[in-house]
């Protein structure tokens, strides 16, 4: 073993640990934010006792979950029951390899970034289906069926919508897509360009993204009032915590990818708000803008969660196959047309 190889391995390991810590931190405070914001919207208080404004509530809940007994139901498939939460969590973690946190703050700017994201996130479905099947429980099996049907249906419009900014930027690389939106002013972000085609793509992406992370209007796979808790009804303790962690990490990912593709990534909305910096200052400011924009979308997700009812299964499938996919194909055609004919300045 030579020194250089060890050093590279060490740096990669350090980056991986930092990202894992970041995910844990963000998820904890997303849960706290969710509970406080939903409390506010439903005219309740929400957790406010432990720590200032209840800031320590989620760490305490996490500790409680870790101490709980790990129940494996009778008749469950022991092996699959144990590995299912891991299959679900690992892809949600792996996506962060290409997450563009800031200028120069990408773990690895793969030249197939967007394809990597959609390929890796599609694996989580297998984990969810396996979890539902291995629990040996009617509710969780029904949840698994719904998950398989829903996630496969909504992956198609999501990828079609992702293609639009890729066509505009001419690159699958995260850094390349963000560079294509640079120029100081917010009017250079894709959402404000291209005759509203990217804006439509953004709407499709967000709707499909909500379905992908089984967020409220589309959370029929764990619909509490119909299926108890769907695929994860038999899970407890650490394994349940992993499902929970995945759900919030994936929600953050959806928002972060939306910011990257449509809202200029780490660029500031106005040139005088930190475009002309260099070095560490530039990194810090770009990280701030990325996180700030993502936080806005996370807030919108919570807002949706507090206000919208859940759709029915048949409505969900109809909407997916008869509305989202034709619309996705249409915007793909439209984007290809305007770019090929040179109607947009790239």
């Amino acid at each position, binding site marked *: 073993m030579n020194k250089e190889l060890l050093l590279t391995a060490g740096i990669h390991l350090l980056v991986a640990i930092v990202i894992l810590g970041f995910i844990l931190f963000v998820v904890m405070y997303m849960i706290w934010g969710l509970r406080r914001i939903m409390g506010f919207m439903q005219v309740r208080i929400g957790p406010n006792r432990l720590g200032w404004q209840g800031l320590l509530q989620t760490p305490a809940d996490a500790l409680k979950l870790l101490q709980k007994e790990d129940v494996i139901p009778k008749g469950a*498939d022991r092996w*699959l029951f144990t590995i299912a939460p891991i299959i679900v969590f690992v892809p949600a973690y792996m996506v962060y390899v290409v997450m563009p946190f800031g200028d120069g703050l990408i773990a690895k700017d*793969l*030249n*197939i970034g967007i*394809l*990597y994201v*959609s*390929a*890796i996130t*599609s*694996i989580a*479905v*297998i984990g969810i*289906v*396996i979890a539902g*099947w291995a629990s040996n429980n009617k509710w969780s*099996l029904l949840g*698994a*069926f719904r998950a*398989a*049907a829903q*996630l*496969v249906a909504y*992956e198609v419009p999501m990828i079609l919508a992702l293609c639009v900014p890729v066509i505009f930027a001419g690159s*699958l690389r995260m850094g390349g897509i963000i560079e294509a939106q640079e120029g100081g002013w917010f009017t250079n972000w894709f959402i404000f360009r291209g005759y509203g085609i990217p804006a439509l793509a953004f709407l499709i992406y967000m709707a499909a993204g909500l379905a992908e992370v089984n967020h409220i209007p589309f959370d029929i796979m764990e619909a509490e009032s119909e299926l108890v808790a769907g695929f994860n009804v038999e899970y407890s303790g650490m394994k349940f915590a992993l499902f929970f962690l995945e759900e919030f990490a994936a929600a953050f990912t959806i928002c972060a990818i939306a910011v990257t593709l449509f809202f200029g990534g780490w660029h500031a909305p106005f040139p005088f708000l930190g475009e002309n910096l260099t070095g560490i200052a530039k990194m810090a400011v770009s990280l701030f803008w990325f996180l700030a924009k993502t936080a806005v979308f996370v807030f919108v997700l919570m807002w949706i969660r507090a206000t919208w009812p859940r759709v029915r299964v048949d409505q969900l499938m109809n909407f997916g196959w008869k509305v989202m996919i034709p619309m996705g194909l249409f915007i793909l055609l439209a984007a290809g047309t305007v770019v090929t004919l040179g109607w947009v300045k790239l």
Partner: protein
Amino acid sequence: MIAELVIFIILGIVAVSSAFAVILSKNPVYAVLFLVINFFALAMLYLVLSAQFVAFIQILVYAGAIMVLFLFVVMLLNLTGAIESLQDKLPAQRWLAPALGMVLLVEIAVVFLSGFFAQVPEASELPEGFGTSAPVGMLLFSRYVLPFEVTSAVLLIAMVGSIVLAKRRP
């Protein structure tokens, strides 16, 4: 060289053992999962062979879509065990198969290692951008545009066919 050899050996062992697990496992759900592992090992091998685009398309299409369909059908029909009857109509086949399989293996190996394919050139430096999405797209829409269009017809026919099959007749 050494690093690539080690990676190849690990991935090769994973691929071959998971392939055998697929064809030997009693429970179809396990078979599906072993097949997913096999596809992952192959995707990693594609990465080693600098075919990044194809590697991730492999994960997206196989692990993300095809295997979910398999799982869905296995669970829908609840095929866990018991459907494979012990009375084989062709009992000799089970014993003959490995022998003939060895013959097939030797045959493929001979074809690969001799004659035409022996002219495989030694590894050398790759052109810039090999294996990324742009060259694949250029080829698909220039030299292989006809096969590409035929593929879309195949997909359309498959779509119509599966809808016809799934439709309940009154």
